[in-house]
């Protein structure tokens, strides 16, 4: 048993996700408190070697690098098998994984493999009397729960996306890179990835620093056009309320709320969204919330920091223009 912290580095087509570096930053902080080391696990397809150095710049002391075709597209079986193997060998105290779709599948699979606990979607992680205590939202954030893994090791935590700060990379840091081989051969992996359909609009909701979101007030599928233009100027992701998704105006992938995605951007611009409790559950932890709504009584104004009471079809294009002027 060591006091080391392991962190799993997630990548898509060789690009690391922000959630990985948020987890790496947390790993660094915990390791510094324990006086121990951070090991980053970078498992992907050919050409991911540069991620090893990047992981070091985000706080890793050591990187375990596996570069193999079986690990290129995410599948939980080969990732969990290899992660379980390196964890068994090094016996770290903690394994951190970003709570993305992939991470939420990997964490519990790893926990079963190692017969230990996984605490999902943590929003805070602190030592109290030497015991790591996780805080996580339950019942769509209506309540919070404090959780611990008192006996079994390693303790696995998945970290809610954007709940922990992404550290500034430090390219002067150095560390040791060790190559590891996959555990499963292709013919031992049951699932085969046969395609990928990328979401139009580029920026993914859960990673987005800015989200422009539309609800019932946009009135129809074409009502999202001005929102798309604003989102493009800001490099923002496009969100939607349940009402708009249920009406068939925009695909489910865009839905924010209790029955959609939970997001925590720096800026959330709610356009024509009344702010039902279910929607609030998915975006209440946004740093700054702007509400644009014709109805001054809309509940979203209770949650928002800034409000504009007017027609979104007038306000949103004006905002797009104003941002263009300022941002060039």
């Amino acid at each position, binding site marked *: 048993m060591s006091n080391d912290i392991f962190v799993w580095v997630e990548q*898509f087509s060789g690009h690391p*996700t922000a959630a990985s570096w948020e987890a790496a930053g947390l790993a660094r902080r915990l390791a510094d408190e324990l006086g121990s080391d951070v090991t980053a696990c970078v498992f992907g397809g050919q050409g991911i070697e540069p991620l090893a150095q990047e992981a070091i710049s985000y706080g890793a002391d050591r990187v375990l690098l596996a570069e193999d075709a079986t690990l290129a*597209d*995410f*599948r*939980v079986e080969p990732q969990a098998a290899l992660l379980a193997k390196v964890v068994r060998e090094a016996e770290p105290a903690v394994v951190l994984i970003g709570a993305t*779709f*992939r991470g*939420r*599948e990997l964490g*519990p*699979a790893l*926990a*079963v493999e190692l*017969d230990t*606990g*996984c605490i999902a*979607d943590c929003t805070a992680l602190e030592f109290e009397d030497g015991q790591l205590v996780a805080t996580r939202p*339950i*019942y*769509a*954030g209506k*309540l919070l729960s*404090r*959780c*611990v893994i008192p006996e*079994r090791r390693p303790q696995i935590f998945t970290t809610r996306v954007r709940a922990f700060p992404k550290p500034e990379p430090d390219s002067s840091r150095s560390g040791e890179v060790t190559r590891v081989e996959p555990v499963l051969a292709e013919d031992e992996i*049951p*699932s*085969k*990835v*046969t*395609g*990928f*359909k990328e*979401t139009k609009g580029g920026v993914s*909701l*859960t990673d987005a*620093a*800015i989200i422009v979101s539309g609800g019932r007030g946009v009135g129809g599928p074409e009502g999202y056009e001005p929102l798309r233009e604003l989102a493009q100027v*800001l490099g923002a992701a496009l969100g939607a309320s349940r009402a708009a998704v249920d009406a068939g105006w925009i*695909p*489910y*992938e865009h839905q924010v709320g*209790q*029955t959609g995605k939970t997001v925590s951007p720096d*800026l959330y611009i709610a356009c024509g969204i009344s702010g039902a*409790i279910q929607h609030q559950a998915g975006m209440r932890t946004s*740093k700054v919330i702007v509400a644009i709504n014709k109805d001054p009584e809309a509940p979203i104004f209770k*949650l928002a920091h*800034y*409000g504009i*009471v*007017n027609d979104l079809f007038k*306000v949103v294009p*004006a905002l797009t223009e*104003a*941002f263009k*002027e*300022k941002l060039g």
Partner: protein
Amino acid sequence: MHIVVCTKHTPDSEAKMSVDEAGNVSWGESPLIINPWDEYAVEEALLLREKYGGTVTVISMGPEEALEALKHAIAMGCDEAIRIWEESCADSDTLATSYVLARAIEKMGDVDLVLFGKSAIDAETWQTGPAVARRLGYPSLMYTIKIAELDPDGRTITVERLLEEGRQVVSAPLPAVVGTTKGINEPRYTSFIGIRKAARMEYPLWTLADIGAEADKVGAAGSAVRWPQIFMPPVREGEAEIIEGETVAETARILVEKLLAEKVI
């Protein structure tokens, strides 16, 4: 085809949750319902049965209240329902729960497909589906938004599953564990006939001995995670600062200045 749907009961999504000084969680007068995400799994099982024939069995590990979830699934059209419980199952985390569910599925023996909702709206761990898949050694196909192909004779399934960047298309052999998500279908309402059937139905209770589960892998003894405290989040007080310029263009410019000052752009 034998399809098993794993479900649980939760407080209604509209419930006003609270915690008293002793730390007891309450959902007031709100009813206990089937976990809303599980309705998508039940619906998908029924659609597959309509297409390929077979049986849909719904199972739940839980005390008597779990019957609420099972009854709803039967009222939607499932064929069989089994509850698994004894007192020692209380305080199970997902490690222990997945063990019990996997043992029950293994006991059935002839299962082709295991369906889950994407998560439960109470504890929201997202863990039980992937954990059951790992325990059974079945392919894990979480966040499935479309079953693109199912070939019961060729024993394969192809799904589209949601990842942050888009939809991953994955093929796998049966039996498999599929986690469903909203968008895969539109769950049907329960019918009067269905509700009557659910009321008359027998709900067999399986004990740990029935599924051959070892006592030290269940309940608190079999769990790694403890949750010593549940509490209410701090409430954000206050109202939005309403921005109003002479014209819409001016209003927009004022807001942009404020957002730049907040350093969120």
